């Protein structure tokens, strides 16, 4: 069946898609928002660690489900395996209204000015597609601010001399440090570093009609029972729906972007919640399905002028898959540093993001979200037993006595780390699935060694008695911080969209999600994804007035 034509059809109601829906609907465009998942209901999962988006032992509570979705993972030795969404190798983020923003940890980082200019700051890295972004920090600054105010960020950068310039303060005061955080702040300050409170997409005071945080220990990986954590589902999406211009269709799985023989996007073909094939025609098509699924959708959209998938005539779609190599250090400490105040991550250190002698990039360090008991089973120094009385003793003795500093290493883009479409395996709707292959760039080992040693030096100074590092690995990146598969750029030969997320050669096809990232910063990515969604929307709204995309 085909529906009446609308101005814009958006695929994915996550971080990027939710914002675009609100911006376009508020500007008066008629919008259909297709989301494969549904509203997350707190009652269905509550504080259950085995149904956390972080440790989905019994399936992803915030989607996608193991029953209908699949991917193919290609190991470095060339062997392949079909993987389910709740398995690590699937590289999942989420699949519900709000996407990752329902269950995320809500750290709200702006990238630094240098993060947009890595290539010109550091020069070429061998065998890498390292490049500058086609936009600068200054271009994005007003949109970072908009995200901070509209979604809602609590923070205070007084003690962070490394951040880019900002015009306005955070809309909410920062959260206080927890016990572990205070120990790290004391230590790091003594060492001449500059610790500061982590900015959070979470209400420290009542804001935007939602209450302040009640500090559940089960926060990251879970929905917030009082809606104090801000995502697109409880901020911009309700506004979009209230305009009357945005129709949200849940349980709808996009299969293909319809591109006509003249190279125009005509709409989206999808399966509705009853698995019936449907078509939604539109003046413009926006893909915000996350870095892995957006690439898959483009690759599955073959047409006369784009026989290898929409926007893929130069074979860049799906390449440069990035995420974050997380490294850091842990220490066992006499003092009981555990505090029953979730989510637990309170202090950040940005001294090592840039300006590290001999190193391209670097990364932020932060103390960790509370590890719930099952996840804690693997928090161990090298050589510790994995089971038996000794393992149990360790749990009992140290659960509340660990100080941690970990962080995301700025990854160096690797063309061969990629999402393609599997030639044989299909999902429950018969749509060819993602095939994930490649590894991180070898340079990330250097960055990871560096950052974990910095963390180790600080943890040692906290008075911890036993300290160990978690080093880097070359394992293919992606997962929660997936990015980079449809990079923006000025040269159509080496990028997928222009600087406004507009797919090269298909003027009415846009992307707004993590796929656009040229590089993924030494920070969690979501605030940048949000800022980009505002930036792309702004361009569309401006052009729309002259009916440029009709």
């Amino acid at each position, binding site marked *: 069946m085909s529906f009446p034509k609308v101005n814009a059809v958006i695929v994915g109601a996550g971080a990027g898609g939710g914002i675009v829906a609100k911006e376009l609907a508020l500007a008066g465009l008629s919008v259909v928002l297709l989301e494969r998942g549904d509203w997350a209901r707190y009652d269905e999962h509550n*504080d259950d*660690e085995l149904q956390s988006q972080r440790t989905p032992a019994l*399936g992803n509570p915030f989607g996608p489900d193991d029953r209908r979705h699949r991917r193919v993972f290609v190991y470095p030795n060339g062997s392949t395996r079909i993987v389910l969404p709740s398995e690590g190798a699937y590289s999942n983020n989420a699949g519900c209204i709000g996407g990752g923003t329902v269950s995320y940890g809500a750290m709200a980082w702006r990238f630094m000015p240098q993060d947009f200019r890595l290539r010109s700051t550091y020069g070429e890295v061998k065998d890498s597609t390292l490049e500058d972004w086609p936009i600068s920090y200054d271009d994005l600054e007003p949109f970072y601010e908009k995200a901070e105010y509209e979604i809602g960020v609590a923070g205070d950068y007084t003690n962070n001399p490394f951040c880019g310039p900002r015009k306005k303060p955070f809309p909410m005061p920062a959260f206080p440090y927890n016990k572990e955080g205070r120990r790290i702040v004391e230590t790091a300050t003594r060492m001449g570093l500059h610790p500061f409170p982590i900015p959070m997409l979470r209400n420290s005071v009542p804001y935007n009609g939602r209450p302040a945080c009640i500090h559940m220990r089960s926060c990251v990986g879970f929905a917030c029972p009082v809606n104090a954590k801000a995502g697109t589902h409880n901020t911009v999406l309700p506004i979009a729906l209230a305009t009357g211009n945005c129709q949200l269709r849940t349980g709808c799985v996009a299969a293909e972007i319809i591109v006509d023989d003249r190279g125009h996007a005509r709409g989206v073909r999808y399966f509705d919640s009853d698995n019936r094939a449907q078509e939604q025609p539109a003046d413009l098509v926006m893909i915000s399905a996350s870095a892995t699924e957006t690439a898959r959708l483009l690759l599955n959209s073959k047409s006369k002028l784009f026989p290898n998938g929409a926007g893929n005539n130069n074979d860049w779609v799906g390449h440069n898959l990035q995420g974050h190599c997380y490294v850091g250090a842990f220490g066992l400490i006499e003092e009981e540093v555990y505090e*029953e105040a979730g989510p637990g991550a309170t202090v950040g250190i940005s001294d090592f993001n840039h300006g590290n002698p001999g190193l391209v990039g670097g990364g932020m360090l932060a103390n960790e979200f509370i590890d719930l008991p*099952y996840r804690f089973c693997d928090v161990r120094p090298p050589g510790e037993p994995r089971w038996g009385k000794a393992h149990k003793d360790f749990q009992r003795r140290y659960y509340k006595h660990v100080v941690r500093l970990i962080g995301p290493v700025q990854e160096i883009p690797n063309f061969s780390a990629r999402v393609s479409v599997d030639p044989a395996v299909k999902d429950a709707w018969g749509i060819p699935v993602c095939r994930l292959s490649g590894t991180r760039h070898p340079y990330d080992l250097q960055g990871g060694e560096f950052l974990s040693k910095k963390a180790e030096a600080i943890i040692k100074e906290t008075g911890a008695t036993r300290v160990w590092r978690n080093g880097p690995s070359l394992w293919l990146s992606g997962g929660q911080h997936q990015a980079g598969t449809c990079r923006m750029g000025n040269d159509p030969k080496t990028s997928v969209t222009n600087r406004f997320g507009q797919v090269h050669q298909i003027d009415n096809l846009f992307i707004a999600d993590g796929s656009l990232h040229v590089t993924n910063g030494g920070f969690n990515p979501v605030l940048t994804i949000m800022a980009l969604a505002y930036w792309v929307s702004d361009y569309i709204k401006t052009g729309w007035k002259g009916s440029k995309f009709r």
Partner: protein
Amino acid sequence: MSQDLIVGIAGANGDGVSRRTVLKLVAVVALGAAVGVGASAGITHWGRTAPPPYRFFSEAEAKLLIAICEQIIPRDDTSGATDAGVIYYIDRQISGPLARHQQSYRLGLASFRKTCLQVYKTPFEELAFEQQTDALRLIEEGNAPNDLWGDPSQKAFFDLVLDHTRQGFYGSPRHGGNRDYASYRMLGLAYPNLIGQNRYANGRPI
């Protein structure tokens, strides 16, 4: 206790619960109390009567698996895997969301049994605790006779049971394990993790 309940129900009767319903509920409460008294002698855990039948495992498989899980998380001055009902967690989950592992358990437990008979000439359950530990380490490290193992390999089987035992012991009690919040009590974690009375419909608080 049943007194309180009856009072409570009688109160509800005024709000429209029929008298027959009240009588039925009273009967159920009384019966429950009687069974509880009869069966709880000598049992430390509230509400534990005869163990429910397994959904997937045979009695023999369950017996072996219980012994393996107890090695992974043994009882000392606090509960171990057996006390916490880890077997019920595994049994329930591989009859549900983890059904893809059924074959691994069926074949893995059979290989495990044969391994012990060949190497120790004794069923695992009958070995002394320290010997059991040695046997399990042999399998963990992949050093048992390989011809007794196919898919799953001995290492893969060990890792599977290890992971599921941790889940059953340290996860939420709602899935059959972690009885009486055994692990939360051991770790000194507040339980249950109560929150406000907030409820949601269509993503909005009601």
